[in-house]
């Protein structure tokens, strides 16, 4: 990605930005996030199929903000998160430079958030068939069995909150789980606390989640929590129409239609 490196160098040299958020080689075959403030370090920038971490998470972190205006390497999942963060008033167009990367690994410039949205409209979020199948299988279980399945799946969770830390949309100053007046969720990692935590996390992402899977990738116990958000994503599409971050649409849950359909209210 020589082009990427060249672009990064130019941005730093012209002082258009003060930090480049990108990917670099990590331990073994893995990649890691890198925060480059000197042109000399730009040569460490890489981009390939291993770079799956959602870098958008750093845009709202105060430690990164302190470094100055960033340019961010942004493959599609990152672009989606950027757009959603914009919808939620967390970033503005002047706050950052987006180094977009197409699925063909080509560098692409975006003049505005609207341009990102136009680009993403041709790259809609699609729940892969294998996940749809798994979700169908889970839903086909009898209700008690399904509950037992999830209690067991969630059992290894020890509330490390890596899922929260990796999610670009979990940017709250104070998470509800850290609120003890009232104690909404018991903090210990026992079955009830785990269940409540994951329900709350999923609900807080309802209509917002962009399906980047960062939460699942971050989970040290590989708990399939992304199935919950994927299922919600399907529910949103089914009940309220198309899905995906959009600058001029209101968020799914903070808007409504008088003729929203449901079948369970008497």
């Amino acid at each position: 990605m020589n082009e990427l490196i060249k672009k990064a160098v130019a941005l730093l040299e012209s002082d258009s930005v003060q930090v480049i958020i990108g990917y670099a080689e990590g331990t073994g075959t893995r990649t890691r996030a890198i925060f480059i403030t000197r042109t000399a370090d730009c040569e460490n920038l890489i981009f390939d199929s291993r770079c799956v971490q959602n870098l958008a998470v750093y845009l709202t972190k105060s430690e990164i903000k302190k470094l100055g205006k960033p340019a961010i390497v942004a493959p599609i999942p990152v672009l989606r998160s950027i757009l959603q963060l914009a919808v939620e008033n967390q970033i503005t167009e002047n706050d950052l430079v987006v180094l977009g990367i197409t699925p063909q690994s080509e560098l692409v410039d975006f003049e505005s958030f609207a341009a990102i949205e136009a680009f993403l409209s041709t790259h809609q979020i699609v729940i892969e068939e294998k996940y749809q199948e798994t979700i169908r299988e889970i839903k086909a279980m009898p209700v008690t069995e399904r509950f037992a399945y999830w209690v067991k799946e969630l059992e290894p969770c020890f509330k490390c909150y890596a899922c929260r830390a990796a999610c670009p949309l979990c940017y709250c100053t104070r998470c509800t789980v850290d609120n003890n007046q009232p104690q909404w969720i018991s903090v210990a990692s026992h079955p009830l606390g785990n269940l409540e935590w994951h329900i709350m996390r999923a609900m807080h992402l309802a209509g917002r989640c962009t399906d980047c899977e960062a939460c699942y990738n971050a989970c040290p116990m590989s708990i399939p929590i992304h199935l919950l958000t994927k299922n919600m994503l399907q529910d949103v599409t089914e009940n309220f129409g198309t899905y995906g971050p959009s600058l001029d649409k209101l968020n799914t849950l903070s808007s409504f239609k008088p003729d929203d359909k449901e079948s369970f209210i008497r």
Partner: protein
Amino acid sequence: MTEFEPKIIAFVCNWCTYAGADLTGTSRIKYAQNVKIVRFPCTGRIDFMLLLKSFGEGADGIIVSGCHPNDCHYTSGNFHARRRWIMFRGLLDMLGIDVRRIQYSWVSAAEGAKWADIVNSTVNTIRELGPYTEYEKVAGYLEKEAKQ
């Protein structure tokens, strides 16, 4: 063995269902004692976390009720609530939390008889489903912890 008496909590809005339940009273329509009401200003105020908390605290069933669509005292609180319930219900169902244990309804201030009917039918449903032992088992860890 005594018969199972379901513990049911009702989250209702002040303007329609609470008033509707008042009308049930003034009309002297009898219903089961199992349901107890918590008053909210609007269904829009009813946090899904409170529903979750109710199961954690040992509720066998929950009623959530407010103004009919287009009747909301605050014009749109119930519309927001409806979206939230649609999403919440889908998530609970995915997780195997028995959605039959939460009865959602629209009961207006004029529907005293409907409120009695909602209460009685919910009590019957929960009676048939039995105590929510699956959830209690999960919640039970808390009590054990507290005892130690």
